[in-house]
């Protein structure tokens, strides 16, 4: 019986249930923390589906809604006892991370410009001392930006000799992305750093990065491509350097 109710979770998340099934599942929810947690995740996913449908509402809608709420009494908050049965969201156990993760994808990274230089560098990534939620946000924001670059109409890809890796450049997006797999671990206490080499030989510091435990990595730099002649990767002490301090481990000539 319980097994059957549990199996309804996907259907419940997309409202593919009859009123009786809905009631049955909701009463099950209060007693099943696993279901509550899983449902919360599925509902965040359905919210993503919904967002893709966003369109400008008719101008009249707002006036109608605001007028309506002015004469609509509100339900009182539920007490602990009725929470289990209340509302479309699960009663217990949903991760607080879901709230922030859901919108973090919409965050835009700030754009930087260096007045004196033609190169603006924006490295994106995790934060020390930040919560997992924030880190997750950073990663999602990075993934978003990476996707914008790699899907740009003028994006082009070049091999980067660092495991199975490549650089993707887009003039239109003024960005370059380095990503790949099977990236070797840097020396202890070191991490990789990306540099852009200009026509005059000067090198500008880009983001530092290190592979994940599975060898994958992804980093991105925002810059004006004008005058860039190469991208170089070196190993640098943790935190990166102002100028390269070691020989390059990978290079891409433009």
């Amino acid at each position, binding site marked *: 019986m319980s097994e059957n109710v549990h199996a309804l979770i996907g259907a419940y998340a997309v409202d593919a249930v009859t009123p009786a099934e809905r009631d049955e599942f909701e009463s099950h929810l209060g007693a099943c923390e696993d279901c509550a947690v899983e449902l919360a995740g599925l509902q965040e*996913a359905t919210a993503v589906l919904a967002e893709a449908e966003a369109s400008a509402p008719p101008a009249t809608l707002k006036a109608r809604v605001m007028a309506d709420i002015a004469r609509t009494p509100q339900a009182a908050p539920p007490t602990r006892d009725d929470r289990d049965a209340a509302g479309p969201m699960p009663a217990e156990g949903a991760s607080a991370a879901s709230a922030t993760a859901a919108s973090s994808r919409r965050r835009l990274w700030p754009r930087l410009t260096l007045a004196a230089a033609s190169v603006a560098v924006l490295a994106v990534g995790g934060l020390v001392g930040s919560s997992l939620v924030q880190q997750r946000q950073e990663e999602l924001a990075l993934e978003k930006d990476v996707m914008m670059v790699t899907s740009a109409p003028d994006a082009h890809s070049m091999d980067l000799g660092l495991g199975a890796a490549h650089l993707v450049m887009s003039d239109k997006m003024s960005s370059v992305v380095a990503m790949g797999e099977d990236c070797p671990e840097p020396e202890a206490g070191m991490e990789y750093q990306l540099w852009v080499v200009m026509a005059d030989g000067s090198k500008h*510091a880009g983001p530092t990065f290190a592979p994940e435990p599975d060898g994958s990595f992804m980093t991105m730099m925002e810059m004006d491509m004008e005058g860039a002649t190469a991208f170089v990767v070196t190993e640098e002490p943790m935190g990166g350097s102002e100028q390269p301090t070691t020989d390059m481990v990978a290079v891409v000539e433009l």
Partner: protein
Amino acid sequence: MRGDGMSAQRRERGLRAVPGGSDAVGAPASRPGQDAARLADLLVRSGRGDAAAFEELYDALAGTVHGLAHRIVRDPHLAEDVAQEALVEVWRVAARYRPDQGSARAWVMTIAHRRAVDRVRSEQSHADRLLTHGARHSGEVEHPEQVVDTMDAQWRAARVRRGLAALTPLQREALELTYYKGYTNRQLAESLGIPLGTAKARIRDAMIRLRDGWEVAR
């Protein structure tokens, strides 16, 4: 020209932050509805009767509520009615929202989707509607001032497309018929000629794959 300006902004993935990192520099002004914590706060305040908070919430979410309703019920007038009902319902039961349960956006969209699906099912012509409306609606002409961020919208659409593309054709079909067209799991099973358990599992597998692909909360 080198060094200081850039190094202050440097961050790398997964390890550390430079104090005063790039968030503080040149960040775009925050736009309505961009921030989950802000939406949660607005919804909580709405639940306490704060109409101004609700109005801000409206500005952030009404476009999605309306678009979703339009996609599901098809008819523009009906869509507006459904969106109105859903948004007023949000106001009515806002006090039940608890931020630790999930995002305000997901909570609102759950209400909106349910309202739209219930309306579709109650329509007399439901059966015909299901058979005759295959194509996605073309959307309304958006007012320029309401297109807050085209890039953002494009990215959202691309993200959804990519997520849906990662599903199997059978999973996509299951979501198309349920989430977008309002079939119950039993209707799905019968229309596809598959066992009920298979239908339930297919919907669930599809949603799990989307969730994992999008890396929203689990």
